[in-house]
């Protein structure tokens, strides 16, 4: 189960699990939002390759528009998944 809380300031708070069951809904929400975006991942408990794909597609869209995506507050376990994907050094992760 994933909850996405969209705040006016361009911050999206992700809460729960971003897995294959939730990735389509997450992408549908994120692709409606203009950049720059900040994803607050402090309450993101889990992410799989389906979730990583959502983040990559969002990054590509915003990058092609000259905008940006930043990820904040990743837990060590979630950060590990970005590291396995080789994305921990190339995405803007705080």
């Amino acid at each position, binding site marked *: 189960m994933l909850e996405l809380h969209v705040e006016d300031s361009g911050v999206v708070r992700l809460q729960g*699990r971003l*897995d*294959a*069951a939730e990735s389509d809904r997450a992408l549908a929400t994120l692709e409606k939002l203009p950049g720059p975006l900040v994803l607050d991942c402090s309450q993101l408990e*889990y992410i*799989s*390759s*389906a979730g*990583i*794909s959502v983040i*990559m597609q969002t*990054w*590509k869209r915003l*990058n092609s528009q000259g905008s940006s995506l930043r990820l904040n507050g990743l837990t060590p*376990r979630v950060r590990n*998944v970005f590291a*396995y*994907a*080789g*994305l921990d050094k*190339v*995405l803007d992760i705080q």
Partner: protein
Amino acid sequence: MESLAALVAFVREFIEAEKLSEDVAFDVDLVLEELFTNLVRHGRGQGEIEVELSRAPGEVRIRLRAAEPSPFDPTAAPRVNVNLAIEDRRPGGLGIHFVRELCHIFRYEWTDGVGTTLVVMGVTD
């Protein structure tokens, strides 16, 4: 993908019964989801997919069995280059890459119309 919730509940039960850590729970969830979605995405395992989790000293074993009309070997999936720039990456392949990262044994066999995938990951006892 509704079955994912059932998989998560199954993993949770196993982790609690075996008194394993949340770090192990995360890794088992990840490997199982990637193997399961790989089967479903490629139209395999349309019937029942049997999942078995077991514990041995220093390791957790995950076995998936599904009726498959022909072999579909996930261990033969092309390797993903995770050093490419994001702009140059194409979707797909990351899930099996995670399985390779987390499991020191990753095997597949197909016998009499049944495909079996076995993975083994190290855990701290």
